[in-house]
C-alpha cells in the first residue's frame, strides 16, 4: 500500500477513529489520531529527504573511501616529482660526462694533427734528400716522440670513448622512470574524469576573460621550450630551413 496517498485505507480508518474519538470527547486519543494523520502526510517528504541523505552519504563515502586518490595526492605525486628530478640529474650527469670526455680528447687530437702535419713536411724533405745529417737526427727524435705521444693519446682517447659509451646508459634508466610517471598521469586523468562525472554538469565552464591585444601578443611570444611533435600546434615552424625562409621573407 502506498503510504504517500492521502486517501488510503489506513488514513480512512484513522479518520473514522478520530471522528469517533472526537464525538466521544476523548481528548488524548483524538490528539494521537490527529498526529498519526499529519505524519502520514509528511512521510513522502521524509522519504525523499532520506533518499537524498543516503545518496549524499554514499557519494561522500565513495570519495573518502577511495584511498587511492588520497594516496596519489599524498605520496605518488611527490614521488613522481622526485623521479623526474632524478631524470634531470641523470641526463645532466650523462651530458657532463660526455662533454668532459670530448673536452679532454679534442686537444689531444689537435696536438697529434698539428705534429703529424709538421712531421709530414719534414719527412717529404727527407724523401727528397733535402735534409742534412743534423736535421735528420732532429727528425728522427721528433718521430720517436710523436709515436710515443700517439700511443699515449690513443689510449686516453679510447678510454674517453668508453666513458661516452657508458654515459648513454641514462637513456634506458630515464626511459623506465618516465614510463612509470606516464602511468601515474594516466591514472590521475582517469580519476579526474570520474570526479567531473560525480560533480555533474552543473559546473558551467567559467566565462573566459577577454584578453587584450597586448596580452595576446605577450602570450604568443612567451618562451615555452621545445616544440613536441604532435602535441604543440599553432604556427610553429618545422626547423631551421623554415626559420631561414621566414627571416629572408622579412628582409634578412
Amino acid at each position, binding site marked *: 500500500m502506498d503510504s504517500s496517498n492521502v486517501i488510503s485505507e489506513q488514513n480512512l480508518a484513522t479518520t473514522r477513529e478520530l471522528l469517533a474519538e472526537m464525538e466521544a470527547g476523548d481528548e488524548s486519543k483524538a490528539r494521537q489520531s490527529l498526529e498519526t494523520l499529519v505524519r502520514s502526510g509528511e512521510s513522502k517528504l521524509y522519504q525523499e529527504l532520506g533518499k537524498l541523505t543516503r545518496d549524499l552519504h554514499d557519494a561522500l563515502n565513495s570519495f573518502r573511501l577511495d584511498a587511492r586518490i588520497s594516496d596519489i595526492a599524498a605520496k605518488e605525486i611527490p614521488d613522481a616529482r622526485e623521479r623526474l628530478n632524478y631524470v634531470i640529474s641523470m641526463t*645532466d650527469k650523462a*651530458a*657532463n660526462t660526455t*662533454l668532459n670526455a*670530448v*673536452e679532454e680528447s*679534442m686537444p689531444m687530437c689537435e696536438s697529434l694533427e698539428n705534429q703529424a702535419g709538421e712531421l709530414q713536411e719534414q719527412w717529404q724533405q727527407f724523401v727528397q734528400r733535402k735534409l742534412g745529417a743534423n736535421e735528420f737526427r732532429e727528425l728522427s727524435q721528433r718521430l720517436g716522440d710523436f709515436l710515443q705521444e700517439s700511443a699515449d693519446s690513443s689510449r686516453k682517447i679510447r678510454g674517453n670513448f668508453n666513458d661516452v659509451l657508458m654515459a648513454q646508459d641514462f637513456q634506458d634508466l630515464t626511459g623506465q622512470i618516465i614510463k612509470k610517471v606516464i602511468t601515474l598521469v594516466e591514472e590521475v586523468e582517469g580519476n579526474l574524469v570520474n570526479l567531473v562525472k560525480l560533480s555533474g554538469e552543473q559546473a558551467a565552464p567559467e566565462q573566459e576573460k577577454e584578453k587584450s591585444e597586448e596580452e595576446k*601578443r605577450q602570450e*604568443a*611570444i612567451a*618562451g*615555452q*621550450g*621545445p*616544440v613536441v611533435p604532435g602535441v604543440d600546434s*599553432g*604556427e*610553429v*615552424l*618545422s*626547423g*631551421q630551413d*623554415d*626559420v631561414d625562409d*621566414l*627571416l629572408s621573407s*622579412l628582409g*634578412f
Partner: protein
Amino acid sequence: MKILIVDDFSTMRRIIKNLLRDLGFTNTQEADDGVTALPMLQAGDFDFLVTDWNMPGMQGIDLLKAVRADAKLKEMPVLMVTAEQKREQIVEAAQAGVNGYIVKPFTAQTLKEKIDKIFERIEA
C-alpha cells in the same frame, strides 16, 4: 673576438663553447640568464652575443631588447640559439633586431653558417 654565451643549461653552454672554439673563437665567457648577462655586457668588451630565449629571470628576447636600447651595446651582433620556433616569436626577434636565429637542435655546420653570415654582413 670576445663572445658571451647565455643559456640557463650549463651543458648547452659547454656545447656552444666547444663548437665556437672549434671555429677558432677561443675567447668566450658564460652567463646563465639575461639578468647576469646584461651587466657583464655593459662592463666587458664583448664583440658578440649568443643567447638562448627561454630562461628564468630575464629571457633572451628581453636581453636582446635591452642590448639594442643600450647606447654602448646597440651595435653588438646577437645570435639567438633557441628551441622557440613559433612564427610570432621569430618575427618578434627580427623586429627587435636579432642578427641570426638558430633553432635547437642544431648542427655545428648551421652555427658556422650563421656566424659567417653575420660577420659577412657586418663587414659588407
